């Protein structure tokens, strides 16, 4: 009996490994391996054709001291992220609050708000490039009808980032949907209890809804940081980084070095610096979260 059980256990363990094998191979070959390799490659000068030259920390020195476009792209990406992420977070949350009310046409409204977030990014970029077109774009026409002299959104270094931020807001429906699901997961007895205690709508929002939503807000914030620092497609299609590098997002700079100038070593070191930046920002957010995120059942 005992030996029978043991062989069964062994068989189960064997099958466990077998079933997980594709995932394990994928993990090693496509994630862990490349990560380790990227550290090594970042210490080389390599065009991918001739053998790599070991250059030590030279790439990192170049990033820090000689590459002006690094600092520029870092600044652009950071400004964009620090405006766009909170803006989308707050808008998505407010929108979810409003659409969680009992209203007529609720599902139609939700669909309308959600729809832009499933339009493929290349199409989003093409559409908004047309909307932002100087003088003839819909936005400038609309502003002109209100008597406002509109800027050249994508052609003016001062307006290109605001244009990207406005466009990003169009996709707020994705965040809205997650927030809506979060709102619906809040147990209604909490609201009942608050109402019995005499809490009005605002007090229920501040003392029930927002605390219960903080774990989800944290999740959205971290995902927002990871995504917001990696903006690529829209910039690549709409402006190609211009005008005069005013929309040179970090990933664009990385892409150019790696795949246009074929500097795989330098590209790898740029990737690692961005990775580090994402980790540091996420870590700061997580550390601060003990002060503002409420976990039910904990503490």
């Amino acid at each position, binding site marked *: 009996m005992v030996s029978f059980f043991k062989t069964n256990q062994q068989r*189960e363990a064997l099958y466990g490994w077998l079933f997980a*094998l594709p995932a394990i191979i994928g993990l090693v070959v496509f994630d862990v391996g490349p990560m380790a390799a990227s550290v090594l490659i970042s210490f080389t000068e390599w065009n991918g054709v001739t053998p790599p030259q070991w250059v030590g920390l030279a790439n990192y020195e170049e990033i820090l001291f000689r590459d002006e476009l690094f600092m520029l792209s870092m600044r652009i990406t950071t400004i964009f992220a620090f405006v766009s992420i909170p803006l989308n977070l707050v808008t998505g949350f407010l929108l979810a609050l409003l659409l969680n009310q009992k209203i007529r046409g609720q599902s139609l409204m939700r669909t309308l708000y959600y729809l832009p977030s499933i339009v493929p990014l290349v199409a989003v970029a093409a559409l908004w490039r047309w909307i932002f077109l100087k003088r003839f774009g819909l936005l400038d026409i609309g502003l002109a009808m209100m008597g406002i002299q509109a800027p050249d959104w994508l052609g003016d270094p001062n307006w290109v980032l605001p244009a990207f931020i406005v466009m990003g807001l169009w996709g707020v429906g994705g965040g809205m949907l997650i927030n809506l699901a979060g709102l619906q997961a809040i147990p209604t007895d909490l609201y009942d209890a608050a109402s019995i205690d005499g809490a009005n709508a605002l007090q229920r929002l501040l003392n029930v809804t927002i605390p219960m939503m903080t774990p989800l807000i944290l999740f959205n914030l971290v995902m927002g940081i990871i995504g917001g620092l990696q903006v690529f*497609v829209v910039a690549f299609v709409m402006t190609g980084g211009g005008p005069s590098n005013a929309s040179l997002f970090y990933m664009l700079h990385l892409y150019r070095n790696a795949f246009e100038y074929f500097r795989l070593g330098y590209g790898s070191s740029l990737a690692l610096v961005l990775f580090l930046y994402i980790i540091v920002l996420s870590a700061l957010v997580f550390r601060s979260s003990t002060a503002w995120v409420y976990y039910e059942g904990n503490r």
Partner: protein
Amino acid sequence: MARTIPYAVKGPVASIWGVLSNPYRLKSLLGRVVLYLVLIAGAVLVTIPFIWLISSSLKPQAQLVAFPPIWIPNPILWENYPKALTALPFARFIANTLIIATGATLGTLVSSSMGAFAFARLRWRFRDVVFFALLLTIMLPGQITMIPRFVLFAKLGWVNTYLPLIVPAWFANPFFVFLMRQFFMGLPTELDDAARIDGASIFGIYWRIMLPLSKPVLATVALFSVQHHWNAFIGPLIYLHDLNKFTAAIGLRYFVTDTQVHYSLQMAASAAFSIPIIVLFFLGQRYFIQGIVFSGVKG
């Protein structure tokens, strides 16, 4: 508190009277009016770009820049669509995209569900360590593995083929493994036990019990995967160099950044590229939203 309603007044008039005569209900009525105004204004704002996309795509070139803007083109130029879609071999691009999406989706369904089964149902050493490592890679930003993966596929001679875009999917996607594992965990283990007693093998439990019961989560994963490969940009951009190997996303970018192409054709191509994914969303709405909600709320 409510004043008596003149008994001859009934129906809607009565309810209006009821609201107007009651200060509390009046206040909440005002609140609701504001709520509707805000939501409708917002819905109009997010919908305008869609209408502009479709309207522009059906216009003769001369009406594109009319002031004030023309919303309903006259005549409606349906032929803009075939014109745009044959200006570049878009049929070919779409076929290419479907080859990649099908190959990758099939792969990820098989490999991710196998992994999920191993993590949810089988006991083996280091299972939890491997699962945790897999979860970590969900957070791993794509840019960090991009260059080493490119080097790997270049060494294999796979550049300018679909293999770099399909093969990794056959080695499980960590996020999908997580999604399916959570689903499998929710299925009662009594089913496995009963099947074991009836002499089913471990593979039989996976194939005949788990998979047939997991159609909803398989549908979610399939939809996410197809959507991902339809929209995918940076991968095809890096790996596919010949025009006749382009995916639709890369082809569209090529088309809309060509300054010779006027905006109605750009918009026709963009709309044609977006519509299949929007239709797919509506067909599989339930599975889509379940997946998004799940990854956001419980993730």
